[in-house]
């Protein structure tokens, strides 16, 4: 479904992604694990057009998207839950959710239906629907961005460290909810530092270090690898 080939990304002169290739098939949930600074967010921002690739190719359903603008990519079915949320703080929870669908033609018609689905995943959002997004707690804001992303009825959901900054009890809940979204047939690219929890959701994963793919494998391969056990799972 999504194919990244020989991607290089640089901020000015400093290159942070080196000749990176990965792919995500239909009906797959794929993880990208790696420590802080590995380049996970940069990779995601390059996929959704927030930063421009220096070279390489990104195709979605066979269509090259690396020269498209972010809003076009969003309308084409890739939606991102950014690491730093990017909500509309002066709008209510419900307005934020509605904006998730309002500018995506195929999602707009199903807005009311989708909002019920999002509320079923995150009942707290229904309780708080009239509250301003900017006044909610970090965890609630995280749920709101995921809800806003789902409102666009994406073909593929990209999550950038959804568990970041959540208290431990919420982290577990968050990954349960991600599993529910997965069961509803969503294709997901999940960037995480929390490998232990991430392994419970994904079908297959990559490990990213210093802007390169260091390893790729199934859940079993990843969880049995010595380096990963030591560096990420603490055993």
């Amino acid at each position, binding site marked *: 479904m999504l194919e990244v080939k020989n991607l290089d990304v640089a901020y000015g002169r400093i290159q942070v992604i080196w000749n990176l290739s990965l792919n995500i098939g239909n009906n797959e949930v794929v993880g990208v694990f790696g420590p802080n600074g590995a380049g996970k967010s940069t990779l995601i921002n390059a996929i959704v057009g927030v930063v421009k690739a220096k070279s390489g190719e990104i195709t979605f359903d066979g269509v090259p998207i690396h020269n498209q*603008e*972010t*809003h076009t990519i*969003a309308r084409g079915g890739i939606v991102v839950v950014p690491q730093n949320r*990017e909500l509309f703080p002066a*709008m209510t929870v419900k307005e934020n959710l509605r904006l998730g669908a309002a500018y995506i033609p195929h999602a707009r018609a199903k807005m009311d239906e989708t909002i019920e689905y999002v509320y079923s995943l995150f009942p707290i959002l229904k309780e708080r629907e009239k509250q301003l997004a900017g006044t909610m707690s970090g965890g609630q804001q995280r749920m709101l961005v995921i809800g806003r992303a789902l409102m666009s009825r994406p073909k593929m959901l990209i999550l950038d460290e959804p568990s970041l900054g959540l208290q431990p009890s919420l982290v577990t809940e968050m990954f349960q909810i991600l599993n529910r979204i997965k069961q509803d047939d969503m294709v997901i690219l999940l960037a995480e530092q929390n490998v232990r929890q991430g392994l419970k959701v994904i079908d297959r994963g990559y490990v990213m270090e210093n802007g390169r793919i260091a390893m790729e494998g199934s859940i079993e391969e990843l969880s049995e690898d010595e380096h990963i056990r030591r560096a990420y799972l603490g055993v």
Partner: protein
Amino acid sequence: MLAAASKKQYLFIALLVIAAIVIGFWEPHALIYGIQRGSLYAVIALPLALILGILGVLNLAHGEFLTVGMYATFVLFSRFGVDPMLSTVPVTLLLAVVGVAVYLLTIKHVLKAGHLSQLLITFGISLVISELIKSIYTTQPRGVFTTYSYSSTTLAGIRFGTYEFLYLLIAVAVLVGLQLFLKKTRLGQATFAVGQNPRGASIVGINVSFVYLFVFGLSIAIVGLASVFMVPRVSIFPGAGTPYTMKSFALTAMAGLGNLNGILLAGIALGIFEAVVNAIPGGSGWSDVVFFGVLILVIMTRAIREGRR
């Protein structure tokens, strides 16, 4: 960002109303004149606030666009005998086109370049426009005389000009129009979203570049609308619009960024204030000094208070 009316704003309205009543008894002319002038200030300040709030650009060429609108109205009148009131639509459209062109040629390319480059480029635009006007029309003042713009009426023994009440009408119409646009239309909601978080907006599928283009064009069109109605009452020269840039910025700063209703209130407060200062014997000429002094105080108090938070 565009915020809703706050408690403080109601307090301000209450104070303004009390002041208006007091002034109304003491110097009714100052009150009427102040409301009229203030409404005009507000119409001109609203588009500056919009560009600043949504694009994050302080447009130092704001007043020069006003001058362009005045000359366009003047040319339509002197060459083709078009009454200023009939110039409303063509001049507003012309300024929209000018705004879009200036945006595409210049502003668009400095949106990511930092505030200093933006200030310099809009300052450059202001110089280019005023020099262009000078070389075409010289510095000789021009005027457009219409009889209706000097009509007046007497109410309860007070005689006052009626034409300038148009300013109040237009200020309210522009304000209500903008609020409806932002709240009720899809493009308006997109604009509101972009003003809060451009990256977030692009992620939900909003074409942010188009919103910027539209907002700039719309804002300059509003400036054009204001210029048409000013023409019958002002002398037209290359620097005629220039003082309005700083006045508009001052009103935006006083109201607080994103507070469109506050701009009308601040405008009327400024108008009344100026009229009162001018009514004091020997006071004329002092209003700008006092006004900008008060403005500095307001901004400093706000900055200090926000710094403490």
